């Protein structure tokens, strides 16, 4: 056999041969990966392989002939798990292996009586049928013998109405389906459940021929602990495990189905989605396998909770309040009405009587436009976004410490990290794909510290779960710093060369009374010490934090405390380390980047600096006279959201424009919010549903969901990704970008029509870290800012130096929250709130999907001891009350919370949990303290 070199063969490049041709090999790759990489046209069929899973080697269909010399003796080896080695000769399609493949597939078919043979070419073939076709099996020669189908349990079906007949299919679940008559025992589902999601809901019962897939202890999908991530359905090659949408997809002719790639809007992970669309209707959503963020995985919200998009509850016409009633109006009427109203308020009370709240659910372009309208058209810096109520302390604190208020590293760094510090975050619920990645690490033994008042899913796997009292993060973080310093575990070189103000900081830390702090926070000093020492000794430690850090009166300070720990141990500026906020909303990073903050404009320039004002005027075309300056440029810092409410109540704020945010339901101390909004002259709400806030509006403008618009979202790791409309805006609705553009024009400011690519051009001109971003070069997987001209992006910040030059240490004493000081005695329990997996914030979207069938209410978790003392029974109704108000809800007795702590979610508006939450906010950013509410409880 002759060999030709297809590539330049340098002396040290190791080579192997595929069908006689030499190719360079990569370290650690299997023969299958090697073959697919070097000769993409050569197709080695497999059934059990999924490139995201560990090689399994069960189907043997990928077997190839392997020799150590061209003419040497050959051995048959499974290519998926045999490493390719130097000098190896691989024959992927020898007569022997082709026969072997055919015979194996024939065996599989001998146990699939329902499979039609022969399989003929068609677009709807599933993966298994494609392999049947490729291996050329047209008949089964074995006499009909034992069939797995004969011993399958006859259905868990409690829903036979749906099918009409008793069959093998498990219909129990709102989304998931399992029909073992189609199963080929490749175990991809079992492995995906374990290796991707980490739930281990699926396993196998029995052995040998009788082996079959089970859920839990052989129960139905609905009874099992399945979290409906759909990883099993996505990897299944036969459709034995499927879901309600995918099942239907099989029926339609795939030629008529468009696939649109976009980005999920349910959290800051930024999962890429592939939306199947037929006749302007969505039929199914899957996760693209080549997505850098989520590699074919996503959660039940991204994959299944999309039917809200054409829900009958959608708003479809502008509404104007006339005679106290909201009544339909045309778009022209609405814009005219608003232009007049805004102009007159501005004329009467000045531009600062008008404010805007932008939406982290909307695109960068839309956020940019709304802040531009407020600043350049209205003439006020009164623009804020929901980052205020979630991660504003992160942005503030990290800017103070490092100079940039964003994640220093990428989620991909989890692959390299050797230690994880997780503070005040429950990612398996709130950031499921990142949560699953962290869980994979933890299960495989990567040491994990969880600092959280709640025993979260990840806390179960943590070596150290420091279950502190809510509100004492600063105390515990200072304790950790104390032990790192006192045990001489500080990275001296890093501290000396990269930071400032260490000496003062260290002195203050060493002066702390550790026993007192341990008592305050209710933690075991020895546990904190061992955790701190392990963190400091780790080679590469990554920290993650969530709203359990920020939504506190000392939120910003706790952020700076985390930054202190990161700098003490030198865990920043390289791969596998860093400080990484888990951003709550899909585009909360972007909303702040785009300038939806009262103190900083697009690109984070402070608004009260004359140089910056000049910069903005120039870039918005005002200074050059390209557009008429319709207004004097605002020069002072605007209102933060809580200040907007106060100003409204005080009569200083007259008009509020809210784009896609239900502040009535989601902002704390609801009575206060309602009173404030009632006092406005004009409340404008852009919404897709008739939310609690929309109900109070004077003008309601029907916007669109992410599935109907183009633009970009920036995820929690600064990755700017393309959002693409899967369907046209619902009839009567406009995209939120179009709404703002038309409003700007109606106010006399010429703004070009909304288009994602041209908007990005404008933004790239204003925001320096977007300089190299174009709609084109974002590609499928986006770019991580800062992006230099030419498109080079940045995975890791602060590599050689910090954005602010030197990293700065900050010392803050622990301070008890005013909430506890003022109300702690009368209301002795601490309520802390969070999200669950199934719902998203106010439930506006998820509650209009079948997720509602999975979780249908907010419940209160109470420690068994407290339940006993209060005479509260599991699943009984209780009254929860605070200094502000009271609600009733169902209690569940649980060890997830310590004595004295209560926990609930806030997804169900009828519950109005924010009737009890307070108005204490973070000292620096006014982020509300949702996580510490003094309450009491009694049985009803």
């Amino acid at each position, binding site marked *: 056999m002759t060999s030709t070199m297809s590539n330049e063969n340098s002396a040290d490049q190791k080579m192997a041969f595929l069908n006689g041709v030499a190719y360079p090999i990569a370290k650690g790759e299997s023969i299958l990966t090697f073959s697919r990489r070097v000769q993409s046209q050569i197709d080695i069929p497999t059934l059990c392989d999924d490139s995201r899973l560990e090689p399994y080697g069960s189907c043997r269909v990928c077997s190839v002939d392997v020799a150590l010399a061209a003419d040497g003796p050959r051995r048959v080896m499974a290519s998926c798990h045999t490493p390719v080695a130097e000098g190896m000769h691989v024959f992927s399609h020898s007569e022997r292996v082709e026969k072997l493949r055919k*015979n194996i597939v024939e065996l599989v078919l001998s146990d699939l009586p329902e499979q039609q043979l022969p399989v003929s070419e068609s677009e709807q073939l599933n993966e298994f049928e494609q392999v049947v076709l490729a291996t050329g099996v047209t008949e089964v020669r074995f006499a009909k013998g034992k069939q797995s189908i004969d011993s399958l349990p006859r259905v868990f079906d409690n829903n036979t109405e749906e099918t009409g007949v008793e069959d093998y299919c498990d219909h129990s679940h709102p989304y998931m389906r399992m029909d073992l008559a189609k199963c080929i025992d490749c175990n991809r589902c079992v492995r995906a459940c374990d290796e991707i999601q*980490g739930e281990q809901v699926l*396993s196998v019962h*029995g052995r040998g021929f009788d082996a079959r897939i089970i859920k839990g202890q052989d129960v139905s999908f609905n009874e099992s602990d399945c979290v409906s991530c759909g990883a099993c359905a996505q990897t299944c090659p036969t459709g034995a495990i499927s879901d309600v949408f995918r099942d239907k997809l099989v029926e339609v002719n795939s030629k008529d189905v468009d696939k649109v790639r976009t980005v999920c809007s349910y959290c800051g992970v930024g999962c890429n989605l592939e939306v199947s669309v037929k006749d302007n209707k969505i039929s199914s959503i899957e996760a693209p396998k080549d997505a850098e963020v989520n590699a074919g995985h996503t959660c039940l919200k991204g994959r299944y909770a999309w039917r809200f998009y054409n829900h009958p509850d959608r708003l479809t016409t502008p509404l104007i309040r006339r005679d106290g009633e909201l009544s339909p109006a045309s778009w022209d009427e609405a814009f005219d009405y608003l232009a007049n109203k805004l102009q007159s308020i501005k004329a009467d009370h000045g531009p600062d009587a008008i404010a805007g709240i932008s939406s982290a659910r909307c695109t960068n372009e839309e956020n940019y436009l709304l802040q531009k309208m407020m600043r350049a058209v209205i003439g006020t810096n009164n623009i804020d976004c929901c980052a205020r109520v979630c991660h504003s302390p992160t942005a503030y604190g990290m800017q103070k410490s490092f100079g940039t208020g964003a994640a220093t590293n990428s989620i991909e760094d989890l692959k390299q990290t050797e230690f994880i510090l997780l503070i005040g975050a429950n990612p398996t619920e709130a950031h499921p794909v990142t949560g699953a990645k962290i869980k994979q690490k933890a299960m495989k033994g990567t040491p994990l510290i969880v600092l959280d008042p709640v025993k979260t899913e990840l806390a179960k796997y943590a070596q150290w779960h420091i279950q502190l009292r809510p509100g004492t993060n600063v105390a515990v973080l200072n304790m950790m710093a104390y032990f790192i310093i006192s045990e001489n575990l500080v990275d001296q070189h890093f501290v000396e060369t990269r930071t400032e103000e260490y000496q003062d900081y260290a002195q203050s830390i060493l002066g702390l009374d550790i026993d007192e702090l341990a008592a305050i926070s209710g933690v075991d000093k020895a546990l904190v010490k061992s955790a701190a020492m392990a963190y400091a000794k780790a080679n590469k430690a990554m920290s993650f934090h969530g709203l359990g850090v920020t939504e506190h009166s000392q939120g910003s300070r706790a952020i700076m405390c985390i930054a202190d720990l990161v700098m003490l141990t030198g865990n920043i500026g390289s791969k596998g380390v860093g400080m990484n906020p888990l951003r709550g909303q899909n585009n909360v990073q972007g909303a702040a980047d785009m300038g939806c903050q009262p103190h900083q404009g697009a690109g984070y320039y402070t608004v009260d600096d004359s140089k910056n004002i000049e910069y903005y005027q120039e870039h918005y075309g005002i200074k050059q006279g390209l557009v008429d300056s319709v207004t004097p440029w605002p020069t002072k810092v605007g209102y933060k959201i809580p200040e907007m409410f106060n100003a409204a109540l005080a009569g200083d704020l007259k008009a509020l424009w809210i784009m896609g945010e239900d502040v009535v339901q989601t902002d704390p101390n609801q009575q206060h919010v309602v009173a404030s909004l009632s006092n406005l002259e004009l409340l404008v709400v852009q919404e897709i549903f008739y939310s609690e806030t929309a109900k109070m509006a004077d003008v309601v403008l029907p916007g669109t969901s992410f599935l109907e618009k183009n633009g970009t979202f920036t995820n929690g790791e600064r990755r700017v990704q393309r959002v693409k409309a899967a369907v046209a805006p619902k009839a009567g609705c406009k995209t939120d970008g179009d709404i703002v553009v038309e409003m700007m024009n109606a106010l006399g400011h010429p703004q070009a029509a909304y288009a994602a690519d041209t908007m990005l051009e404008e933004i790239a001109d204003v925001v320096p870290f977007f300089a190299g971003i174009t709609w084109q070069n974002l590609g499928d997987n986006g770019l991580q800012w800062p992006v230099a001209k030419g498109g080079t992006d940045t995975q890791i910040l602060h590599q050689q130096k910090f954005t602010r030059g030197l990293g700065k240490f900050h010392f803050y004493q622990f301070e008890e929250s005013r909430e506890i000081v003022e109300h702690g005695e009368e209301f002795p329990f601490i309520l802390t709130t969070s999200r669950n997996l199934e719902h998203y914030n106010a439930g506006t979207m998820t509650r209009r999907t079948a997720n509602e069938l999975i979780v249908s209410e907010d419940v209160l978790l109470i420690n068994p001891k407290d339940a006993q003392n209060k005479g509260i029974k599991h699943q009984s109704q209780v009254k929860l009350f605070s200094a502000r108000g009271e609600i009733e809800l169902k209690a569940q007795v649980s060890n997830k919370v310590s004595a004295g702590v209560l926990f609930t979610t806030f997804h169900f508006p009828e519950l109005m949990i924010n009737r009890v939450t307070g108005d204490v906010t973070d000292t620096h950013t006014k982020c509300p303290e949702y996580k510490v509410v003094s309450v009491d409880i009694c049985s009803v």
Partner: protein
Amino acid sequence: MSKNLSSLAKRAGVEQTLFQQLVLNENSKSPQQREKLAKKFLVGESVVSGTASFYDFIDGENADKKAYVCNGSSCLCAGTQDKVKAELIKQFGEEHIGHATCLGRCAQNKAFQIQGNNFSAQDIDNLAQIAKEPTTKSNEHYHVACTLDEAILTAEINDVAKYYQLFSQVTAKNSVDELLTKVSDSGLRGRGGAGFPTGFKWRSCLEAKGDDKYVVCNADEGDAGAYSDRYLLEERPHAVLFGMLMAGYLSGAQTGILYIRDEYPVAIENTEKAINEFVALNIDFLENWQFTFKIIRGAGAYICGEETALLRSIEGQRPVVSVRPPFPTQSGLFGCPTIVNNVETFASTHFILDTTHGGTEKCGAKKYLALGNGKSTGSKLISLDSAFNKPGIYEVSMGTPLTEVINLAGGFAKNIKALHIGGPLGGIVPMSALDKLTIDFESFSENGFLLGHASVIGIPNEFSMIDYMAHLFEFTAAESCGKCYPCQIGSTRGQEMIENAISGKQTIDETLLTDLLETMQLGSLCALGGGVPLPIQNILQYFSEEISPFLTSSTTKGA
């Protein structure tokens, strides 16, 4: 395998494993208890359920029976079990009778088990008494003989303390490297059947990176007809423990685990006793190095004799075969470097490292090397079943002619047409081939057979070879882990083909059978599916006259 489950099992530790909870804890059957176990071990409930359902004696059809009848190949060939089963049914009722695949009572047959006690030979005549008092002593007897000048594996160990002194002596005198070289120089090869060089394996575990390492003794002697490991664990457990201790010292492992099959209760008991004696010796180990033993009790799954399945079994995973590489010495138990060796391999170590032989200074490794043909060295235990006049355990030098062993055992006790040597996956040796074979890996493989674990079962003249083929497929189908298609589906289809031919329903399509055997041989993930074609091909070759009436040559016959 699941890396997550391996790692979580490591976290739980070897003292209280999920698997042993399922095997030993009576309170592990209800869904509520299993839910608790899942929580305790941080795994999904499906893992507990899936694992339990794999084993005959946990959730399998054979769980919780009052009596078990042996259905191993030797008892089958001896034709004794119909009567035994009938007696057991009479005593306990049919629904209370399960089966165990080989209790290792092959020297006498008529084997059965009651409440964890094994019986054979004339014991069945005493069933009423045994049923009353299951601890009644069995009247078991088999021969033990050795043809060597100085016994290696069958040598008695009278003074346990003195026996272990060798450890302190050699570790004081020799470096780890020197001792590993000795093991390699002896030519010792794995006795489980694969014949992998032991010194090489131990050294690669030593060189593997890892804070924790393990030594695992594969005492899941599932091959029907083999009981030499049972003999060693029952009669010479210290020889095994010493080998594990040395392997641990030489590789850096500090934990030795013996995975002993449930079907061998006395082996478990005697090994436990030996471990206690070892602990009582309070041997003064070196600084920073300790060694502890732990017994894991199996639960009735032949596949657990396959090393990766065995490791998964210890971890509480479903014991399905894992891909290799990585080999256990790189990533074995709990994902840590692990030496897995057979009982007999470990038991050979003392002799090899001993420098005093026959009262004089002699290098054991050299002595060991001198036995055999240079490639297969040392001695080998042979298990002979009741087809021989003097059935028992015979220790012979490697290279000993097979006929010499037969003579030693007093020849055959009945008319035999073939020997099944080396377990269910070993070859079927016709009488005409006996002269050609010597006891070593090479001779067997050159002649198209397999030495394996050197168990020998006589197949009587009257036993139909087509029935034996059915038996082999049936065994494979029953014991297949179910992971790879060639074995999972192939063994069942093979069984059906043969059974259809026997019942006269349909003759065997020769091409299809050839295709099936080739598919299993080339395509199977492990030696179970890959190995069973060998004895079947032997039967097709050597007993073609007997088989041909059941075959049809199809017109589309391939090359």
